[in-house]
């Protein structure tokens, strides 16, 4: 617990210290990234956490839990997030996708044994992600400047606020549990292991093949988020830059 406090304190100190640093360059302003120097420092900090804490934990997880077990954990965590996805589907007016989320939750929670299996996919009901950051984007909220959050990575004020709202509307947080803190901590811990394990090769590929990892990550995050907000629909072609 003391270590967690120290990490959070370190991250916040880093953020505050960097906010007080030199004014943004014209290039950073043009890229809608006025806190670029802070963000770069936070990326280095996150990289150290990743290298010394997350990757070793993922390695142990992969060593102890076989592929089938990890898939079960992945399915279980995905199933837990379905109520939040369902609410965001409806808030975005996506009735068909909302009904898919509801059906997936009902089927996987019952036939899929609390979500450890994914029979809904075999029935032709595909899964998808959704969050309140995307909902606000659909409602017309601007993303704001690019941010790298300590521990959490690439974001922006809209998506960061979305994370808080998602936690607030997550029905599993309303289940009265005596050990709620441990339940939440365990869930977050396994979410990190699952996510990092799934993206290990992709991130390594980006790191190895980038001229500027920070710039690459920023571009990929923004493009990916925009694609998610459109729910896979084609972008407005006029928004693409001239060649």
């Amino acid at each position, binding site marked *: 617990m003391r270590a967690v406090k120290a990490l959070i304190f370190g991250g916040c100190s880093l953020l505050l210290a960097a906010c007080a640093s030199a004014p943004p360059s014209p290039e950073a302003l043009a890229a809608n990234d006025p806190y670029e120097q802070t963000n770069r420092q936070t990326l280095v900090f996150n990289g150290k956490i990743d290298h010394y804490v997350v990757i070793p934990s993922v390695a142990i997880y992969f060593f102890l839990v076989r592929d089938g077990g990890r898939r079960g954990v992945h399915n279980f965590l995905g199933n837990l997030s379905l109520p939040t996805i369902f609410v965001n589907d409806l808030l975005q007016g996506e009735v068909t996708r909302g009904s898919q989320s509801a059906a997936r939750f009902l089927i996987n929670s019952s036939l899929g044994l609390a979500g450890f299996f994914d029979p809904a996919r075999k029935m032709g009901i595909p899964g998808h992600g959704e969050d309140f950051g995307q909902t606000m984007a659909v409602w017309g909220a601007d993303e704001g400047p690019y941010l790298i959050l300590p521990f959490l990575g690439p974001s922006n004020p809209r998506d960061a606020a979305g994370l808080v709202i998602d936690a607030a509307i997550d029905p599993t947080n309303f289940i009265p549990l005596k050990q709620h803190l441990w339940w939440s901590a365990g869930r977050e811990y396994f979410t990190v292991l699952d996510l990092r394990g799934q993206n290990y090769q992709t991130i390594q590929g980006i790191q190895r093949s980038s001229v500027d990892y920070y710039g690459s990550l920023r571009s990929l995050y923004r493009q990916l988020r925009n694609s998610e907000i459109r729910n896979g629909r084609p972008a407005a*072609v006029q928004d693409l830059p001239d060649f």
Partner: protein
Amino acid sequence: MGSKMTMKVILRQALLVLGLVFASAAIAARAQAATPAEAFVQDNIHVGLDILNNKALSTDTRRTQFASFLLSLTDMKRIADFTLGQYRRGASPADLAAFDAAFQNYAVAVYQSYFAKYAGQTLKVTNSQARTADDFIVATQLIDPNDHSGQAPLEVDFRVRTDAGKPVVTDFSVAGIWLALEERDQFTSFLGQNSANIKALIGHLNDLAKQYRNG
């Protein structure tokens, strides 16, 4: 005897009619590949995938064939200029020429690495949109015949220009991420951090191209 002859004539006529029906259906299907940009993508991209899938070729031959195929299909100079963003204006002609060469070398290695991931898959053009009179976005899906996961096929879009005498590809996107756009963001970010030092960028590109080639 007479009835046998009549049967033969009927059969021959039926076959002729069937042949005509199939031929016109094929022509109609071809006509449905509507715009020149769609036809260009449909006709050419699978050629690239075929080269990468051809295990009868040695690695070097496959690499050389793919490189010449890619260079005939893309407008590398235009892409290179785009990826330099605002730094192109202040660069010397010598730096620009050196960057163009380094970028071409790097891009061939990167594109080869991207498309090699989709070996064994087929490409289907789904539609296209005109951004301007000579700038098109052609949407395709990569179909993996061995994928039974129920996941939607991967969406790959190609940006095609038709103002250079023949159609050329200027960018492509995988699952909504445009590669040249990502390269521009990366290169300009690097140059912003390194006092617009294009020579340093060229050095990095050459190193990365080498790294891609060595797997």
